[in-house]
């Protein structure tokens, strides 16, 4: 499955696009539509969006209903930063091919970019309704839920959410691999094309009621100590035993190791994205985003005051004339609960200075985000 993140600058998407082109080469091996869609693909890969658009329009003038062509057109609009046009294309696709999950997913990505998280959520839930095992849609939905939760908390707790790092992490889907043979699109390798059978977390499935068989054997009791000093006047601070309700047993039934593995992968991706975002913010001298990548309790070098450290970074980054370029190699990430350590080669270029170092970033989870707690170079 080819995915990439919209928030990454174009050049970073090349890797993803190459994989995408490959995937499509298989899909479009059938002579029936060897027309010019591969050309469109190639042009997209080269970043020649106006030309790609021209080609795809020509293609669609003969086959106006064609799902794959229209899907690519939606992608091109997305790449050209024309969200309104892209939304129109994908919306129409969902109407004509309601069984395809990809247009829903991409609609959600576009809505999320515009901070219309309720619409994004609806679209993703539709994608999952049509394809209950669609892993990317689940991951995206998880992010949308986190966004919606954060909005709800802002309203509940009157937080001023002027968080600079509100970037979109939703993954755009770049091909129609789950197509079910409607229209012109016939996946030539149905087995290979089947979505990775990642069992989705059941709580995220709005359509799947918790019908799992209650296994009455496991009936754990848990206790929690309510510790809210502010509410002490009306609350007794005592442990309260949870009822071993059948619901708990039901929740045990579908548990398997697979979702855990899937989650770890998702976390790995989250952290990889956080590293990319951090390097990109540095490169474009975006101090808000750059400093926003650090946890509020970041261990500053030699323990200097946070303000002093920020001032020093500001001076070294925003205060530097000329271009800065920070690139990172594939990181090695180890995760331990809400803490993760990422090790990678960092390539830094500014003016005549060109250096490569091994860097270790220690991340901590803060809500839906991973923030840098420690930074070490060697």
């Amino acid at each position, binding site marked *: 499955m080819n995915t990439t993140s919209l928030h990454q600058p174009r050049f970073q998407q090349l890797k993803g696009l190459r994989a995408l082109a490959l995937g499509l080469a298989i899909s479009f091996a059938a002579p029936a539509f060897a027309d010019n869609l591969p050309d469109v693909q190639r042009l997209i890969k080269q970043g020649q969006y106006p030309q790609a658009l021209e080609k795809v329009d020509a293609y669609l003038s003969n086959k106006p209903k064609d799902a794959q062509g229209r899907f690519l057109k939606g992608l091109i609009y997305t790449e050209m930063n024309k969200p309104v046009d892209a939304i129109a294309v994908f919306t129409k696709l969902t109407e004509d091919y309601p069984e395809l999950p990809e247009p829903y997913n991409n609609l959600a990505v576009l809505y999320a970019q515009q901070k219309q998280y309720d619409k994004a959520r609806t679209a993703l839930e539709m994608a999952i309704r049509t394809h209950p095992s669609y892993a990317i849609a689940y991951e995206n939905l998880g992010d949308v839920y986190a966004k919606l939760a954060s909005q709800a908390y802002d309203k509940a707790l*009157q937080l001023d959410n002027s968080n600079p790092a509100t970037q979109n992490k939703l993954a755009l889907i770049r091909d129609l691999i789950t197509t079910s043979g409607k229209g012109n699109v016939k996946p030539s390798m149905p087995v290979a094309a089947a979505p990775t059978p990642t069992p989705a977390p059941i*709580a995220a499935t709005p359509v799947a*009621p918790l019908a799992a068989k209650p296994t009455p054997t496991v009936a*754990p009791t848990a206790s929690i100590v309510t510790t809210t000093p*502010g509410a002490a006047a009306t609350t007794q601070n005592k442990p309260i*035993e949870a009822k071993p309700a059948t619901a708990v047993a039901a929740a045990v039934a579908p548990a398997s190791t697979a979702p855990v593995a899937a989650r770890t992968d998702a976390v790995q991706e989250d952290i990889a994205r956080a590293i990319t975002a951090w390097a990109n913010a540095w490169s474009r001298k975006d101090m808000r985003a750059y400093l926003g990548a650090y946890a509020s309790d970041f261990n500053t070098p030699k323990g200097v005051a946070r303000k002093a450290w920020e001032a020093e970074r500001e001076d070294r980054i925003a205060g530097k004339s000329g271009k800065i370029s920070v690139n990172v190699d594939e990181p090695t990430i180890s995760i331990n609960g809400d803490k993760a350590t990422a090790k990678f080669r960092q390539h830094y270029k500014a003016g005549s200075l060109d250096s490569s170092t091994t860097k270790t970033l220690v991340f901590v989870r803060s809500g839906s985000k991973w923030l840098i707690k420690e930074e070490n170079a060697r």
Partner: protein
Amino acid sequence: MLGRKLVFIVLASCLAASVLARQPEKQAHSAAHHPATNSTPAAATPSRVPVSVSDSGPEAQLATIFREIESNQLNHALELTEALLRQHPNYRLANLIKGDLLLARRGPIQTFGAMSGAPADKVADLRAEAIVRLKGYREKPQANFVPRYLLQMPADQRYAIVVDTKRSRLYVYENDVANGGRPRFIADYYVTQGKLGAEKVSEGDKKTPIGVYHVTSNLSRAKLGDLYGNGAYPLNYPNEWDKRQGRNGSGIWLHGTPSDTYARPPRASDGCVVLTNQDLDAVAKNLQVGSTPVIISNSIEWLSLDDWSKERSELNKTIDAWRADWESRDTERFLRHYSKRFKSSDQNFDEFAAQKKQVNTSKEWIKVRLNNMSVFRNPGKEEMVVVTFDQDYRSNNLNNQMKKRQYWLREDGKWKIFYEGSA
């Protein structure tokens, strides 16, 4: 995944369980019982409840939401929460629950208000609101118990208001004239009180006073800042009793809620009693400026109807004895009804006694009639009642009509007048 479900169930249980701990406070007075209804345990109804909205406050919806969470119907709980938010978009508590339910879809959550870095004080406020609202919903007053304070209302008095600061609840009672003037429960509402609770003593102590008050005027929305919401009804704090106790301060009002929130936390005002705007509008319909009593208690004492009748007739007899002894022109008998600590606005007991003796020498006959009498017991440690009536006084050389208010205090087992004056 197990962790997530479990945590959420525990979460709901810890809210629900503290709510279900019935009759938690031991009543100080032996005659008083708390008529807490034996509510159905939350998890007893496993059937799904349709998404519905109600105008009678969010308690019923919140109760359903927490029940759904307990029975692990998280999706349905979220639907219900979103329905509640469509009704009251700036309802902070519902937004918090929504945030938790969404976050729980993504991963295990640890606590109520699970967002990392959530300000603990604000979460605690919302949690406290959830607890008192659910408690209020599950423990409606029983029909055969009445607040001890509402002993007698005049016939033209249609409603009375009783506030329970411990429960953050305001109760509206109707004067059921057809049933011998017995108070009949109409509705109850969530209220906010002073930041530092009840028993106001002095200016700026951020507490809500305890006592028998009435609404003195009606300030319309146009004259007020947004803080007061849909309107404000000033109360007559400090009353004569308060002043005698050395209490001061001012500006204790019944009022609405600012536009940026549906409700305020249980303890948030500077001493005012605050309702949501929709609840204020409902209560305001029943407020008669100058007469509707607003009795604020720490924790309402409830009487069975039998005990209530007994207490009421005992006081009626006492007051009538005072009236009859006045007519008797026997000054000593009359003065037995007055406390040695008596004070009117301009006389102490000795001055008052001397004047009565002197006046009585010129009287050949006296007729006193008391009409439209109200008798309200003052909440609190002292046994005190506030008696108000239209007094029709006739005698051979003077006729006088006035509205009078008396404070009767029980001293050594006997009711004595502690203060009287025109009302």
